């Protein structure tokens, strides 16, 4: 959909138009659109257009972003695979973290002071242009070390 960036699986123009009319507010579409950038583990920047109120996990899933293994428990606070790292100033403005989120975040790899779980952070208009980092996994770091050793 050229207005909202929503992707749908049907190919016909009619279906796209219908989808656009029912699921997006065509007349006020700019108010819904929030651009979010995800820096993937390999450094690639993935840009998505999110709707206000969507969680960052929903953005990744709905936009089919290529982030390996993201959101294993499907947003039920039973894993830490949607772990994202925010910039300090953005992090400070996020809604307060609950004990339940902290409990799972505590198990995340590469935990930082500005880490949150993507399934618990909802997109707000003020976040337009937000950039978040997908954390590197411990396994990746070991691989870097191993490759480094072999090249010496």
């Amino acid at each position, binding site marked *: 959909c050229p207005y909202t960036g929503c992707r749908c699986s049907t190919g016909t123009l009619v279906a796209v138009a219908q989808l656009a009319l029912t699921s997006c507010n065509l007349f006020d579409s700019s108010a819904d659109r929030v651009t979010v950038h995800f820096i993937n583990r*390999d450094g*690639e920047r993935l840009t998505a257009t999110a709707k206000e109120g969507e969680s960052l996990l929903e953005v990744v899933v709905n936009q089919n972003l*290529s982030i*390996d*293994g993201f959101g*294993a*428990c*499907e947003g*039920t*606070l*039973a*894993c*830490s*695979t949607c772990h994202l790292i925010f910039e300090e100033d953005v992090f400070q403005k996020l809604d307060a973290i609950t*004990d*339940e989120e*902290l*409990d*799972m975040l*505590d*198990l*995340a*790899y590469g*935990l930082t002071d500005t880490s949150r779980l993507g399934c618990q952070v909802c997109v707000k208009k003020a976040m337009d242009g937000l950039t978040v980092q997908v954390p590197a*996994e*411990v*396994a*990746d770091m*070991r*691989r870097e070390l*191993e490759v480094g050793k072999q090249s010496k």
Partner: protein
Amino acid sequence: MFSSFRFNWLLSTAALAPQICVVGSGPAGFYTAQHLLKHHRLARVDIYEKLPVPFGLVRFGVAPDHPEVKNVINTFTQTAHSDRCAYYGNVTIGKDVMVKELQRAYHAVVLSYGAEDNRILGIPGENLSGVYSARAFVGWYNGLPENRDLKPDLSSETAVVLGQGNVALDVARVLLSPLDILRKTDITEGSLAAIACSKVKRVWLVGRRGPLQVAFTIKELREMINLPGTRPLLDPADFTGLGDVIKDIPRPRKRLTELMIKSAREKPGEKEAALWASATKEWGLKFQRSPLEVLPATDGKQARGIRMAVTRLEGSGESARAVPTGEVEELECGLILSSIGYRSLPLDSSIPFDPKLGIIPNSLGRVQGAPGLYCSGWVKRGPTGVIITTMNDSFDTAQSVLEDLQTGVLNLSNSKEGFKSVRSILHSRGVHPVTFSDWEKIDAAEVARGKLAGKPREKIVDPQEMLQLISH
């Protein structure tokens, strides 16, 4: 670094499809397969499983009252539906087909068969009636076919769980949970009936070391503290002075310890106090106790208690060691569950295996001294960690396979037949693989039966019944 894979395959003049085989259909197997399929446009991945049904510990290990953790089944199902992926259940590698035969049929073989056994205590009385491994107990209530006839003795008031990890908390919670909660889960009908007649009122989780070395995690502890109908028995003396010790330690350990300290030392709030006052069951943590002997009842066959050495700690943190003080203590109990770790077994005499560590010797998932052979999951790293740990580990092994495909370590010009040759081997040995759509029939039957009982599913625990259902 990774995007170069996507470019290079385009440049190769003869883009041949790698044939890859994965042994084991738990999280390690499926996540390894998923990563391979996603990052190689042509690779074919066949997943073998000894049981008719897939998913390993997601189905047989995760507690019935933790259904959200099982959501990963959805992503695994998607992977299985890929047209370059096939699932073959009811095939035991090392018996129905050997690893060497798999290596002839596939360019790469990934061993992801996990840990099917458990560590033993190695103490007298371990084989008395009433003593079980937590692994078998979990298998029993989760419908693992080999544990369906466990018939654990739940007739005594006090149970002791040796170990203080998440599995220990799981078994304690299943023993003490209100039936109203359990009956709505996918716990098996047979085990639910047995638990309904259980006399167990008190469960002790006993660890050799102290509060700072507990292996369980905070979400599970919180769940136990808030378990309806139960009250926690935590000795404030066990937590004296800990508040100062944890001031500067990493947040996860700090918060976990703070929760224990709070529950042990602080006066409960009004709501909690009321819940605990009306509780009919209780659970507690005993620290610095190392099991010495399971004590027999007068008949000499039944466990009646456990004798333990009182220990002191040498060193601190994760590397603290428990040293016996010479003092000994006895605890009366009729049910003992040892929850001291799962353990992998060697699959096939041709595969390198380290019996001490219980893993396949490897470097970044490449089996040492065995080109073309890889491993992922618990059989690679050891049997600890949650699904995300295994996920990362599996992606890591998949990366090694992808690299080896790219650099030519795995030679694609040797064409391999994949399942075609395995099918004829299995046929000649009278083995009938169960396909993923066969599993979906079993799945549908379990869900339908569960619906009648208000449960997400009623697991079929007899492999013969499963095979009959799909007319094998």
